[in-house]
């Protein structure tokens, strides 16, 4: 059984078919690199996986279970749970400019912690009431506040740890505007890791960066090996080095698929050969 299995993704914008039936699968801990000319539908594919777009058709299976089916309408709450299975690192970072690096990383888990604390307070209140304790409300509030404080502390500790993992332990109090592009993208990676997604997706994580800053970001991604990841990239050397599997997309379809060796050395299709030739002459 495949860990991730995508089946028959189709997506139309107005009358143009951007995804023409995409299928692929991935094992746990594997890295999938997606390459292809601009406009071939790579971003749209990642956006569909992350529920930013709804495909017209297609299913996603995760860990042996049907996660989503384009035909189904999911209520907002369910959708949010499904979303959290995937993480996405954007091409242009999309950090929150009004929060420090550490808060960018911890925001989602902070908010989740607050929700859980509220839930816990309600439960405690009910429990105290059942036990017939006096001041049930006040006691429950006290318990809730304690729970919340602990959870927030844990969230901050984890965010700090993640920033250290991406080599930014000393920048945790900086605002995004004070960081270089490479540093911002590393914060964005830490942010995506904070919810510990099952599948982490990257959409051309270095293409908005100056050439001298791509190295530090690629190094961080390389160090994440062991996680299940999907990386859309123009860095052919990088794709070849880290990927377990490569997908070449052309005009909204998977034109060729294989190991890095099969794709980069023994390309079969004419389109892939032409693409690789262009990419190589570009560098």
């Amino acid at each position, binding site marked *: 059984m495949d860990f991730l299995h995508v089946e028959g993704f189709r997506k139309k914008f107005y009358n143009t078919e951007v995804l023409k039936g995409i299928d692929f699968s991935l094992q746990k801990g594997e890295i999938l690199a997606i390459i292809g000319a601009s406009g071939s539908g790579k971003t749209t594919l990642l956006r569909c996986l992350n529920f930013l777009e709804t495909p017209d058709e297609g299913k996603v299976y995760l860990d042996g279970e049907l996660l989503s089916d384009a035909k189904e309408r999911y209520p907002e709450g369910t959708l949010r749970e499904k*979303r959290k299975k*995937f993480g996405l690192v954007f091409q242009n970072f999309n950090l*929150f400019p009004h929060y420090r690096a550490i808060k960018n990383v911890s*925001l989602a888990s902070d908010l*989740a912690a607050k929700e859980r604390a509220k839930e816990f307070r309600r439960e405690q209140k009910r429990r105290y009431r059942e036990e017939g304790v006096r001041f049930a409300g006040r006691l429950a509030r006290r318990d809730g506040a304690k729970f919340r404080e602990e959870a927030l502390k844990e969230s901050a500790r984890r965010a700090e740890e993640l920033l250290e993992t991406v080599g930014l332990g000393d920048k945790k109090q900086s605002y995004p*505007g004070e960081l270089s592009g490479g540093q911002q993208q590393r914060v964005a990676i830490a942010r995506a890791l904070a919810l510990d997604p099952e599948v982490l997706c990257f959409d051309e994580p270095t293409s908005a960066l100056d050439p001298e800053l791509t190295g530090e970001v690629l190094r961080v991604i390389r160090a994440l090996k062991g996680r299940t990841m999907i990386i859309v990239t123009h860095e052919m050397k990088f794709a070849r080095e880290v990927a377990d599997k490569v997908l070449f997309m052309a005009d909204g379809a998977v034109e060729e698929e294989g190991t890095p060796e099969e794709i980069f050395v023994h390309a079969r299709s004419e389109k892939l050969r032409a693409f690789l030739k262009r990419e190589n002459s570009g560098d």
Partner: protein
Amino acid sequence: MNTFLSITLDLLEGFGTTCLIFALTLALALPLGLVVAFGSMSRFRLLRLPVRTLVWIIRGTPLMLQLIAIFYGPSLLFGIGGFDRLTAVIVAFVINYACYFSEIYRGGIEGVPAGQREAAQVLGLTKRQTFFYVILPQVIKRITAPMSNEVMTLVKDTSLARIISVAEIIMVSQEYTRQGLIWPLFYTGAFYLLFIGILTLLFRFLEKKLAYIKV
């Protein structure tokens, strides 16, 4: 006896009314403007179109006319007693400023890049959390400059209240003009300048406070 002190005290009373109109309008129009902004951005035409029409009418006609319409309208149209004078002023001002504020909010909200909402969505934030923790703080940063203009205009617009005989500072000073004493009218300018000066400092402080956000 018209001493400088007695006139100053008299004008101060009128200035109190000016400040009251200002404060109430701001306190009510700021939140209402956000509601109007949501209405004018709604996906539902049945809500969006009427709201946008209302905004167009309010922004397209003089506040003075709106003031008169709200004060005299109910009794002229339905023969019923309408609002008392001060309430009519507050109602007219709140509606007028809510519409102006709504356009500022709308510009601010639409100016936040789509990527911000998407990043929040991918992180599993609820719509509510996304608005309050991600979008609104950036909107506040984006709208401080246009808001400060609008708020300064409000200070001076309060003088329109005298149209329906609400004794704000200019109306009080005109009592003296009628008695042949002209300088109290110009003296009111000092009150406005002081008020605007304080607001300018407040907004400058706010802008400095928000300078760390690079949007």
